[in-house]
């Protein structure tokens, strides 16, 4: 096992600030290709910032984050879109192909196959003609994941894809991530769901501005790590400081 495989995602001393507020402090880790990783941490822990830095939307003040491939599918946490935005579900999934196609490339058979495949994977063939803005939350989430799937990316960055999903849909999504992983893709999922993080993922990355722990669930899921990840978390509401540590889901 001496072959030097480049990590799919590598952060080295990554530090990002918004103004003076630190979002990420000196975060270093290496994710091997073909792994599913749960990104765990309270609100404001820097999960979204980590993704934004990875795709070049947040500037690293120090250190770096590098991805082994430019083929990145990013599904943001919440898409603020007007309900009247004129795209159908089919249009949304087709958009996943635009990165490869460029401005004017012809939409070919392979593109159609990938789009059909993605619609099937997410079980939303029956929604293709619907206006995206008319869908309910779970259906939208599936359409966006189908878009990511159609992109045929090497690295998936998914920001809280389980938010608002019922249990069967959650399980189906998880199965999909594992299929992607089995095809050699790397899947990073930001989540609040401790239970699923400990049960369903190859690796868990515990973040609270600093890296608290990173490794397989068996090693990272200690009471000490979880309490350090979620404790001492302070939410700023205007000038009020609210300690949210006590509000967080059952860590112990």
């Amino acid at each position, binding site marked *: 096992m001496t072959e030097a495989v480049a990590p799919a995602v590598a952060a080295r001393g990554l530090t990002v600030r918004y103004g003076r507020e630190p979002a990420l402090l000196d975060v270093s880790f290496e994710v091997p290709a073909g792994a599913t990783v749960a990104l765990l941490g309270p609100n404001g822990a820097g999960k979204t910032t980590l993704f934004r830095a990875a795709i*070049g*939307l947040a500037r690293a003040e120090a250190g770096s984050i590098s991805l082994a491939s430019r083929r990145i599918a990013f599904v943001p946490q919440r898409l603020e879109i007007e309900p*009247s935005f004129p*795209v159908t579900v089919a*249009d949304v999934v087709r*958009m996943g192909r*635009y990165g490869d196609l*460029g401005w*004017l490339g012809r939409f070919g058979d392979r593109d159609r196959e990938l789009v059909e495949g993605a619609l099937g994977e997410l079980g939303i063939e029956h929604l293709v003609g619907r206006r995206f803005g008319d869908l309910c939350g779970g259906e939208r989430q599936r359409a966006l994941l189908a878009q990511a799937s159609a992109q045929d990316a090497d690295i998936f960055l998914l920001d809280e894809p389980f938010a608002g999903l019922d249990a069967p849909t959650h399980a189906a999504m998880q199965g999909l991530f594992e299929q992607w992983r089995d095809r050699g893709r790397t899947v990073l999922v930001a989540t609040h769901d401790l239970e699923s993080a400990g049960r369903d993922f190859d690796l868990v990355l515990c973040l609270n501005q600093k890296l608290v722990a990173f490794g397989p669930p068996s090693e990272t899921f200690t009471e000490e790590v979880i309490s350090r990840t979620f404790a001492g978390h302070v939410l700023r509401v205007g000038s009020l400081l609210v300690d949210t540590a006590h509000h967080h889901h059952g860590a112990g």
Partner: protein
Amino acid sequence: MDWLVDPFQAEFVRTGALAAAAVGVICGVVGSYVILRGMALMADSLAHGVLPGVAIAFALTAGAAGSEPNDAALWLGALAAGLVTAGGTSLILRRSRVREETAAAVVFVLMLALGVAIVSRVQGYSVDLTSFLFGDVLGVTDTEVLVSCIFAVAIVALVAALYRPFLLLSFDPQRAAALGLPVERLHLAMLVLVTLAVVIGFRVVGALLVLGLLIAPPATAALLTKRLPTMMALSASIAAASAPLGLLLSWNLDLAAGASIVLVAVSSFVLALALPRARA
């Protein structure tokens, strides 16, 4: 049927209708992105931001004896001032954390005040200020019609070529960035297109009302369709049809021409709202 035919017997009405229809096509297509990206205030800011450029061009090219200003200079002045407005707003946004609408409003009032200040120093501009604000659709020259038509074709071609990046940017800028698109440059390109629409449009319907052609037809189209290409085609058609219909209204009821065109465009929105499928 005289009321229908009479107005278009006059050549200046036909010329005006053609120019306004070309402007309609431009505004209908570009305006689709204005409403999809929530840039209405930015578009309004651009519409008024062109004033100092127009005033400077007027001061430089219109003689003291009251000779006519140079049309090309007015256009270039308007374009330059529009680009300063767009660039200034982007600069403020990049350097600070103010909201886009605040940045746009600050630049908008700066340019407007600057324009009025320059106008106050230029003799004989008061008449032209009226045409700046309210347009002069029945006074457009053949050259202006030609230029408007050429721009209409060029802008439609450009928007078609940029369909995919613009759609991605409008749908979700973060995903567009993840796909490696130059998000900031595309946004600037969009602002330049809106500026062009404004610069070509203000001669016809005026800087106050060009926003009406940028917003009402695409807003109408958005109520009636669920796909962007259809929306843009419909929006351009509505805006273009508003030109002859507006002039018809203007001629028969003796109303201001530019305002009549915009009234027709906005009426289409009100009518579409009444349709059952438009209801939320």
